């Protein structure tokens, strides 16, 4: 049965302001807050971009599971688990009916570079099989589905800066249609 109204019931966030919605709200309310800039690169000076420097999966994703996730997947998992916890424990819906929509610009890029590094510098046959699944941009959303057994539609949108907003809009549309 389709919904007639859609509400945002809970939220989670991982940002340069820290982990959690409260950290984001504190930063947003503080006119003096500035993000820490500096994305480390192995072969060049740091890039002047805001990074989630203090980010950790500790106490949110078990270490053995977190090891299997690339960084974008860990970021999404921590934000999603905050939102899911806020929605209710236990979850008020059957997990197989919960969908995931996500937006991304460059999820998968780090893994992609690792695979190509092996192809170009070692041998095509040395491409790391463990990295390949993380090269798909839907890896974070899919890993979240696997992690929390969320069996509804799982859709990732790649639309540069508007990907995240598209994901929210399409989630609402799915509930309404």
């Amino acid at each position, binding site marked *: 049965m389709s919904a007639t109204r859609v509400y945002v019931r809970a939220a989670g966030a991982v940002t340069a302001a820290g982990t959690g919605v409260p950290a984001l709200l504190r930063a947003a309310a503080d006119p003096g807050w500035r993000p820490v800039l500096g994305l480390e690169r192995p072969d060049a000076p740091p890039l002047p971009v805001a990074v989630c420097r203090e980010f950790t999966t500790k106490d949110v994703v078990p270490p053995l599971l977190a090891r299997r996730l690339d960084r974008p997947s860990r970021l999404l998992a921590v934000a999603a688990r905050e939102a899911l916890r806020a929605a209710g424990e236990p979850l008020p819906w059957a997990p197989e009916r919960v969908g995931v929509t996500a937006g991304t610009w460059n999820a998968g890029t780090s893994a992609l570079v690792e695979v190509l590094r092996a192809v170009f510098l070692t041998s095509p046959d040395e491409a790391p099989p463990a990295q390949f699944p993380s090269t798909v*941009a*839907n890896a974070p959303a*899919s890993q979240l589905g696997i992690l929390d057994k*969320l069996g509804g539609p799982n859709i990732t*949108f790649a639309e540069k800066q508007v990907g995240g907003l598209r994901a929210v809009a399409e989630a609402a549309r799915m509930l309404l249609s």
Partner: protein
Amino acid sequence: MNEVWITGIGLVTALGPDRETTWRRLVAGESGIGPVTLFDTAGFRTRIAAQVDDARLVLPALDRRALRHASRASRFALAAAAEALADAGLASGPGAPHPWALVLGGGTAGLFEAETFVARRLAGGSRVRGLTELVDVPQDAPSDRLGLAFGLTGPRITVTTACSSSTIAVGLAAEMVGDGETPVALAGGADAICRLTYAGFNSLHAVDREPAKPYDSRRRGLSLGEGAAVLVVEDAGHARGRGARPYARVLGYGATNDAFHMTQPEPSGAAWERTLRAALAEAGVEAADVDYVNGHGTATEQNDAAECAAYVRVFGGRLGSVPVSSVKGALGHCLCAAGGIEAAVTALAIARAVLPPTAGFAEADPACPIDPVAGAGRPGRVRVAVSSSFAFGGNSAALVLGGAA
């Protein structure tokens, strides 16, 4: 919910640069899988793929900005969209903006071209710069080029769910048209072979050294492919009003997540059963109504087995009389374009009452008790068909198409 038709189809595949060449060769049982010439395959486990012949690509006169530094994937998408729009009888161009929606499955986009830069950068260090090779890297680059080339000013959505991307794209487009958000949507996907996917599937030992043999007991893995499909998805009333003829009607679509594993299918078929049942429920039809299944059929040991297990769960003892075929034996696995291509082929099967065969199929797998369409195309009326896609990350989707009499 408005009735939704498919009124135009454009195809670019290894079998041909257009819809009719692809269809003619597909139903003749031909295969487009052959030696890869795009890059040196030394060191890979396999040397073959279903590669598009760039020299035969038909690109109409388009805005030069849409073609400048366009990747192979974007050029495939532009050619398919131009063919689809012409087929539907819809005039478009940069001078005539249309508020139509565009929903594409985004694949590797310009990665093949960008790999040249990556190789130079790895060899030369951080002082090596790239620009033109990187222009089409974003997965929505083909969508942006289509929007520019054809004056599309409506919603522009790029779905990236690996091998189900363009199935979901067609499904979303049909929902948007059905809900009255837009009278016309262009939907489909484009993907191009590159070293990343070639090496990745090699590393997973998921490729066959010989051309893929979907649903066959001798199958040893997939063959990679590339291409594009664009479908004109249109409100039936809008189409009738301008005298357009439909290939097929979009009855519904369903999407689920296996919530099981990034690369392995859930083996019992229960996860994909949920996908198929969601699609059938959305379409308002029963499993007993389905006359034809255009399957995912990658030809990997595990995928085909799980897919057949799902069909057994859905169709029961009737499965042996349900014709099932996979185009991947002829067109390879076109990844993010696969679902769009298969939706297009399914629509053509409905419109022309011919079921496309599974190239490479010869020996039935007892664990897969389908009615295989082998050899050449088989005449057969299709009232309701399912086109299914099962992807990396467990992102599964199925479209239900029907006749639009």
